[in-house]
Each structure stands twice: as C-alpha cells, then as structure tokens.
C-alpha cells in the first residue's frame, strides 16, 4: 500500500484540482512572485490577488502590522484591474501550467457582474472566487458579506454574468456564518470558501494613533485558525456544495484539521510569507499522512470528524 499512488484530486464545484492545496488571494500575488520557491503547476490551484474592473491604488501606509501569531493588513484591495491582469499576468500563469482561479470584487452589485462578465470568456481561468467582504459603496459602506440578503443578491447577479464555476468567499465578521452560507448556496454558488480576514486594530501608544493608516485592518495567520476551523465546520454541516477552508493554515496538520472538519480543499495565505514553500510542504505533509494512515483517496477523509 505504501507505494500505491495516492489520489489527491478533488472537484470544487466543477473545477477539477490535482490536489486540495490552493493559495489564498492576496497572499501569493499572481503566482509569478513565488515561482522561485514553488512549482506553480504542483498546486491544486492559484487564486490570484483580488481583481476589480478598474485598477485601484489601495489604502495609505502603513498597511501591515504584526500581532501575536498573526498580522493585520489594510492593503485595501490594491490591484491592477481586470485588463492589465489579463494582458500582463495571466499569460505567465497559463504558461506555468497552473490551475487558475480569479478572485474578484466590486463596490456595487453591477461592478461584481461586470468583472465576472469580463473574465468569463478568457482562456485559462478555471473559476471565479468572489470576495463579498467588500463595502457596498452604494448602500453606504455596509459589507455585502455580512447580510444574507445582500449576499444573495450579489451572488445571484454574478451567477447570471458568468458560466464559470463560482466560489463565494465569506466574511467571518458575522453572527451566523451558516446563514450566509445557505444564502449564497441558494443564490447559485458552486462552492464556498472561508474565512476572509477578521477585522482588527492595533494602536501605537507613543503617538496615540492607529498602527494602520486605515485605522482597522484584517487579521490573518495562525491566531485566527481556531475561529476559521469552527466556521468551516459550521458551514460544511449545513451546505451541500464543497467548502474550501482558509485561515491560519501553517502546516499539513492544520490543513488536515480543516479537511476532517469538512473542507474539500484548503487555501494557504499568511503562511507563504513565513515560509515561501509552505504550500508544497503542506502538500507533502498531507501525502505522508495519507500513507501513514493508509488513506488512498483524499476525498474519503473530507468531513470525517467524529462527534
């Protein structure tokens, strides 16, 4: 058994992945940046930095603060926009042989639809991940992803704007994550990924100013793992579509916790900064665990938590 081939492939709402190890949007650039460390075609998928219709400059500096076991970021979704992504970044990724998922966002429902539509026919993109943790500018800044009705609306609209498989990425800053998950499932999502960062803050006690120019930022890293894992479990229990686990995954043990909790795949974010080979290390750790535990097919491990 020790030498029989392992089956690590998973299908995420129509996207066929070699293995369940993906990169988390915004932490892996456009893949290229990590190519010196990681064979991009070895990973389940590369989820690129969030893309909007037009380029965005993002928030003022400083944008990063380290916290205990984590970090706050307030990048503010700086990105080069859909056109330049397609022209400048996509060709390299396609050449690398990677499975490519485009993470997208907008500040109105229409903008979400527009960018989805723009990417719909582009060769090389296997699926879309929509980030609904963005403020809805029209509705006065309220976050799409914190209200089940708004979440439904935006997903429903994007669903009609694209034929690509649709992953909806949830915000953890909510009372009842399962409720939002059901809403986006009902609206036509093919898969759900969670969690995005948790809103947090840090203060410089000498200057009495926030450490981030944007005042608050998103907390990521191992500090948030227990919260992320709980939410993934809550969502996986009540949805039928595949769930992708994200949040503080640093090593293969962490990844396996998410898979056992019900995640069909996982994304690695902050860990890339600490260990640029984190994704491939996690992949080989999962393979070792499968061998040690005589698990031939990773799919048989998903959601096996005994309670």
């Amino acid at each position, binding site marked *: 058994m020790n030498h029989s081939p392992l089956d690590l492939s998973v299908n995420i709402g129509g996207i066929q992945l070699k293995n369940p190890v993906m990169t988390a949007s*915004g932490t892996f650039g456009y893949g290229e940046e990590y190519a010196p460390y990681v064979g991009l075609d070895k990973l389940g998928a590369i989820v690129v*930095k969030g893309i909007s219709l037009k380029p965005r400059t993002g928030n003022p500096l400083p944008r990063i603060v380290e916290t205990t076991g984590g970090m706050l970021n307030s*990048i503010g979704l*700086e990105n080069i926009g859909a056109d330049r992504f397609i022209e400048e970044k996509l060709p390299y990724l396609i050449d690398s042989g990677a499975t490519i998922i485009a993470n997208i966002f907008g500040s109105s429902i229409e903008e979400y639809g527009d960018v989805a539509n723009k990417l719909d026919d582009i060769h090389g993109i296997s699926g879309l991940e929509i980030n609904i943790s963005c403020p809805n500018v029209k509705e006065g800044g309220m976050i799409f992803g914190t209200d089940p009705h708004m979440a439904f609306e935006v997903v429903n609209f994007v669903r009609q704007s694209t034929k690509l498989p649709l992953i909806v990425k949830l915000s953890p800053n909510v009372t009842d994550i399962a409720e939002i998950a059901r809403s986006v499932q009902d609206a036509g999502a093919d898969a759900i990924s969670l969690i995005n960062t948790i809103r947090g803050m840090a203060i410089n006690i000498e200057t009495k100013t926030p450490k981030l120019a944007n005042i608050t930022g998103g907390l990521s890293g*191992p500090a948030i793992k227990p919260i992320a894992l709980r939410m993934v479990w809550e969502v996986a229990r009540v949805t039928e579509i595949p769930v992708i686990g994200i949040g503080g995954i640093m090593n293969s043990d962490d990844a396996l916790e998410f898979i056992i909790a019900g995640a069909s795949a996982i994304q690695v974010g902050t860990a890339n900064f*600490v260990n640029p080979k984190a994704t491939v290390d996690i992949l080989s750790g999962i393979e070792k665990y499968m061998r040690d535990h005589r698990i031939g097919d990773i799919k048989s491990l998903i959601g096996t938590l005994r309670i």
Partner: protein
Amino acid sequence: MYQVLSKILFNIEVSPTYYKMGIDCPEIASIAVPGQFIMIRVSNQLDPLLRRPFVIHRIQRANTGSYSQVEILYKIVGKGTEIMSKMKEYNDIDLLGPVGNGYRIDSNIRTAVLVGGGIGVAPLLSLAERIISQCSRLKSLILLLGGKGRDDVLCVEEFERLGVEVRVATEDGSLEHRGLVVDLLLDYLESRDYSPGSSTHCFACGPDTMLKEVSKIIAEKGISCQISLESRMACAVGACLGCVVRTKAGGDVYKKVCKDGPVFDSNEIIWE
C-alpha cells in the same frame, strides 16, 4: 532568490544595542549586491510570526576565494532583534535572499558621497567596497555619518581602512560636529571638495526624515541620488503589497519597496 538554513559564524555587540552577525551562506553571498537585503526568520515558533528585513552590510570572501559570507549590522529595537541578539554562533538561521534591487553603480563615478543616519550606515560599507573596486576613475569617496550619540556612530574604522573620508555629526555633540548629518551634507555641498556634475553620485540610507531632507537638498543641486527605503514587510517577494511607497512613476503610483526597491532614485519618491 533562495530560502536557506545557514550557520551563524559570529554575532557580536559592536556598540551598545548594535550587533553584527556573520552568516555562512554562499548561495546568497555569491549573487548579492550592495543594497539588497535578506529576510530573517527570528523564531521557529509562530511568535514573532513574520520575517525581519536586514540589508546586507558586507559580502565576504571565504578562503577559497568565492563570496560565501554575508554580514548584517542591526540594532535592537523590538522583540525580533532582541531574539536575534541572543543567537549563538554555529546555530542555524533561516534566511530568504538576496531580496530587491541594490544600488546601481555607474562605473564613471568620480565622486561618491555616502550619507548614513544611525543604523542606515549598514549597506554603505559593502557599497563603498564595490564602488572602490568598480569605479576606476574614482577620485573622492566620502562618508557623512550621523547618529544621536557616539554609540550610534558605527563602522568608522572600517570605512577609514578602505580609504574613505569620514565626517561625523552627533545630535548630542558627543562626537565631532554637534547636529544632524544633513548639516554635514550642506557644508559639503558648499565646500570646494564638492564638484558638481554627472560624475558625482550620492547614496543615502537612514530614517525617512533624513532621506526626505537629503532628497530635497540633492534635488536642488541636480545630482543623482539613490536612497534606500524601509517599509513594513510581510512577503518581501512583491506578493502582499504591504510595503509600497508612492512614486512619481507614471503619475502617482505605488511601487513595492521589497521588489522595486529598496533602493530608489530620490527624485522618484513622493514624500508624505
């Protein structure tokens, strides 16, 4: 760019709270250029979490002749550098590097003015060495060095051994000129040592306030100046967009200090 687990060769206090660490890493040493930096993982645990950036202070040849060691010069300012100061020789250290774009050295340089503030002197030593070895027409190499007090004025001997002329300013007057390093720069530019023209280059590294001042002064003189910036970093590979700086390139766009820098032309930067 490599990730390597390397051996610490030495780690010594060179002045109160300032340390110099030598690391055996041929992979990085053999391709590094002055102004590039390395990212150090300060703990095997997850607190502190992020790697810390340190500019390469010196690139050293081993006995065999090829470059094999890098040195960094660092100051204890927080918990990461505190942990580093306790690391012992022969221990392993986890490095990423060399990162970023270093100083561009024009081989036609005749006069080079290096301006360092505090720990900002760190990259200037290897820079001086390279300028000396690469610029055959070099006439004058001068270092203007500032610090709060005498303890913050580092490496003077090393520079003098290279034949660099060193002028020092301390804020508390405990060493040479009482005042700021920009005073020294202004003096220099007024003096007859200063020869305007395209073969005079300035290189600066230090706190933002100093770099801003230096950039302004230099801009008025119209000579070329490269400055080395600091910024909070997470990835150091250009992926996270945490370290950006506003530049005039194409209007007003963010550039990445880790990837596009850390060395920039001073007239590129939009100072806040």
